């Protein structure tokens, strides 16, 4: 019950992320609907644009009340609040217009077979402009409460850039899961294959984004160490839940990816597997909601309530226990070895598949090399798990290494790029003796370079 907001500030923090981050996912689904010319998906997108438009009202009202409360706090800059209000009201007005346009188009074509392309493009244009304004609004909004972002970088061992990235990134898996679940349930009800595939892709992307979110969160812990008003016990409580979220994301992401991979070969989905993904996604969303709540408690004193006391023991919980355990050689060495095996599997698989796409071994059709992809995906799972344990052993040293941030970014890019191999229709039809399309070759090169960069970035950690 403590997840239910008990103040305008708390409600504003929750509701405001949907029109901003949610729009990114909505645009992704909308672009897919255009690319596949799927009428049901276009209509579903319009319904969700209309709902997002309606969310502008509670976002504005809670923001207005929250401003009145926060203006009493001397630590909050009134100028920042005024700037946030100005950008906020403009973007919310545009969001309302986007939602209204979507609703009118749905009403206008309620009996027609096809929606009007002009209206659909108008909604697209409005949504893109709204998103651009939302980015500015969100950025100014985050600065209102997060005073640590303005600390002098020269006095910081771990840069606050980590905290900044974490504040933004952590909303992607959370909001992404909400939108993916809505689309997924609609897809299951309507039995729409394109919507099922699109939702599964979003589950996988959110699971991949869970990795940089967790890593930037661990780095933020060090960046926030010593900052006034930040409790290590509250951070650890958030970190424990984030660990469970990472497992949930991994289960959902891998199950969703396997279903995409199998669909490629069989041309149909397994209902049992689809409902398994649904169950994992619902459980993970619940865990993520609690993780987000605990994360919000770290740096938002305005949402604290007496019935939900903050933890006080910085040594309590799962994360400090794993930290202490993994520092013993006998627990550390096996997982480091697993990490190297994981890299061998990932790079071996990426190399074989990418080289076929780039023009090697043309005697094989692409579908033959597509068979080995699960080996690489299981390698990624092995490495996320073992890498997380290795990170626990000495997170401050790893996270402050020059090559750790690029390594994390390349893992994200490399993993998302691999998805292309299971999604591209043109690539799937490449038969023995045929050349892959040029776009696929670019993706293959990106996959190879990303994973090569990940290995180099990892090996350079102790030296630079």
């Amino acid at each position, binding site marked *: 019950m403590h997840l239910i907001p008990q103040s305008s500030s708390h409600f504003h923090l929750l509701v405001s992320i949907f029109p901003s981050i949610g729009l990114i996912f909505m645009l992704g689904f909308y672009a897919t609907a255009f690319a596949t010319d799927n009428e049901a998906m276009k209509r579903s997108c319009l319904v969700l644009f209309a709902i997002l438009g309606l969310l502008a009202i509670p976002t504005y009202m809670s923001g207005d009340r929250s401003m009145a409360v926060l203006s009493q706090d001397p630590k909050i800059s009134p100028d920042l609040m005024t700037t946030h209000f100005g950008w906020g009201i403009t973007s919310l007005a545009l969001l309302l217009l986007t939602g209204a346009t979507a609703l009118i188009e749905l009403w206008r074509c309620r009996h027609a077979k096809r929606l009007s392309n002009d209206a659909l493009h108008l909604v697209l244009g409005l949504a893109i402009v709204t998103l651009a304004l939302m980015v500015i609004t969100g950025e100014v909004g985050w600065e209102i409460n997060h005073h640590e972002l303005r600390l002098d970088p020269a006095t910081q061992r771990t840069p606050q850039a980590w905290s900044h990235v974490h504040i933004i990134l952590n909303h992607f898996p959370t909001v992404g899961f909400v939108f993916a679940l809505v689309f997924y349930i609609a897809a299951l009800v309507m039995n729409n294959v394109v919507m099922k595939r699109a939702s599964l892709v979003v589950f996988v992307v959110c699971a991949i984004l869970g990795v940089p979110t967790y890593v930037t969160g661990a780095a933020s812990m060090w960046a926030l160490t010593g900052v006034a008003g930040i409790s290590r016990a509250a951070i650890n409580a958030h970190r424990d839940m984030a660990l469970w979220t990472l497992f949930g994301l991994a289960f959902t992401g891998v199950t969703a990816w*396997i279903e995409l*991979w*199998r669909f*490629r*070969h*069989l*041309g*149909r989905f397994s209902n049992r597997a689809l409902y398994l993904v649904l169950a994992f996604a619902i459980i993970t969303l619940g865990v993520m909601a609690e993780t987000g709540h605990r994360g919000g408690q770290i740096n938002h004193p305005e949402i604290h309530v007496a019935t939900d006391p903050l933890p006080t023991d910085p040594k309590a919980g799962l994360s400090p226990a794993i930290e202490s355990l993994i520092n*013993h*050689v*006998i627990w550390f*060495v*096996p*997982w480091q*070895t*697993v990490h190297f*095996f994981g890299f061998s*599997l990932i790079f071996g698989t990426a190399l074989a598949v990418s080289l076929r796409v780039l023009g090697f071994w043309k005697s094989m*059709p*692409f*579908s033959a090399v597509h*068979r*080995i992809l*699960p*080996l690489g995906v*299981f*390698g990624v799972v*092995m490495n996320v798990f073992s890498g997380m344990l290795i990170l626990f052993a000495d997170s401050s040293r790893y996270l402050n290494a020059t090559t750790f941030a690029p390594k994390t970014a390349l893992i994200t890019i490399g993993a998302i790029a691999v998805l292309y191999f299971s999604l591209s229709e043109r690539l*799937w*039809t*490449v*038969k023995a003796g045929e050349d892959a399309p040029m776009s696929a070759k670019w993706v293959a090169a990106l996959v190879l370079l990303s994973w090569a960069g990940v290995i180099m970035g990892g090996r350079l950690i102790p030296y630079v």
Partner: protein
Amino acid sequence: MEYGNAAIIFMVIAVVACVLGLTFFGVYCLNKFVDQNTRKGGSVRQP
């Protein structure tokens, strides 16, 4: 608590064998599923 080299080597082999065993078993099962459906014919999406 101190552990000898033999204990560490045993631990490494045991953990790696379990993890790789599970991975290869997973890949085997997935490919077997696709193979079985291929043999039945008709349901396979031919490139």
